[in-house]
């Protein structure tokens, strides 16, 4: 399969193989349309990704490439080595997910837009980590939420959720 170019919203190009790019379902369907309109043998397909910035796109493509390498590895390696491979991927993912909240936010939005199945789960899990074990005010601080519940409402919720908050 030929290489394609993904162009982020700030105009940076990323050249990757089409099979890697197809891990994103959005890109896959865009590619299909492009190929249909230009014919199979169009030279270099340029896919604009309008709402993802350069560095986030890079990060997403990192994931896609690793995911593909992992898939290949799983297919190639014998059954006895599968746990080893899985553990390696998990280790990789853990380091991959060491990002700031800002980055995480952009990453999750990108994963949602590009529809990369594994990545969205990974990101939302990491985001859930920011919530687990925190009090409401801590959650608010972490996510920059404005307390927009009226005092009565909040009081009501607090009372019914006392079992969780104490």
């Amino acid at each position, binding site marked *: 399969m030929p290489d394609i170019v993904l162009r982020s919203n700030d105009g940076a190009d990323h050249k990757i193989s089409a099979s890697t790019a197809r891990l994103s379902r959005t890109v896959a369907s865009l590619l299909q349309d492009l190929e249909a309109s230009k014919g199979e043998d169009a030279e270099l397909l340029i896919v604009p990704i309008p709402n993802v910035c350069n560095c986030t796109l890079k990060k997403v493509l990192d994931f896609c490439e690793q995911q593909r390498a992992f898939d290949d590895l799983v297919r190639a390696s014998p059954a006895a080595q599968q746990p080893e491979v899985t553990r390696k991927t998990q280790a990789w993912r853990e380091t991959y997910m060491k990002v700031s909240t800002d980055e995480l936010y952009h990453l999750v939005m990108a994963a949602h837009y590009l529809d990369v199945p594994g990545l969205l789960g990974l990101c939302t899990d990491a985001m859930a980590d920011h919530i687990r074990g925190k009090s409401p005010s801590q959650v608010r601080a972490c996510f*920059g939420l404005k307390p927009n519940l009226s005092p009565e409402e909040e009081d009501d919720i607090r009372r019914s959720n006392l079992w969780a908050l104490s």
Partner: protein
Amino acid sequence: MSAYSDDSDVEYDDPQVVLASVARVKKGILSELVSDTRLAIEECDGVARNSVICKALVNEAVRTLPQGKGKELQRLLKSQGLKSAREDTKHLKSLQQSGAPPAMEQLPADILGSVLDWLDPYSLAAAACASKQWQEEAYKDRRWRPFALAILGTARASGQQESWRELFFQAASGGHSRTAYMRSPRRMLRQTLLWTETKPWQEAPDFRTVIPQQVARFILKGSIQEARDDHSDSSEDEEGVLCSAGHGDIAPAVRKLWRTFPGRLKLKQEQ
């Protein structure tokens, strides 16, 4: 240095000739070094790790190169380094301007939903207090169904008219004896293991309603084995592993534990 001068027809007896050929070879090598380093600097893409490597390379080059060339390289690095640093700040600023922390509250509902899907009932209830949108999302009834079923058991929950959430809340806030084990933080942590083990919208597996604590212990046992494999020097028992994870660090620890729950099927057979 003489290792580089392998011209066979050079008269090695003459020190002048030897020195001249050494100088010639040295010049060639150095110019190659300069062009290589220059290429490395120009290709350096502003990733932190790469720029560190690049700096180290330049430092080495400066040590061997004559002063003029070395300075030139350093200048080039500086311009390039500044540029990438500036790009970084620019990027960060653009991220902040697009409003990262404030934007978090504009998290689309379906993403927020899939984030909340990962949570245990305690964190879910806490998150519900955070803001109105979050409350709406967190209070969706399907999220509470497996929790309520797990606490009450299928039999007791059947035929109820109330919402699953209310059922669970009633049980959790003290009406039910089985909730007692959920109260202490450590128990809560164990409980977390159970809740997060499957996605909440899936029906709670039967064994969770039967012997939650034993299952938790089982999960802990299996994953502690794994933790030991990772750091073979650590000798904590299961409580130790949990304690060593401070309050803030509980979540990753929990995630690590439940991810590798090896004997789920085995446990079912043993029952």
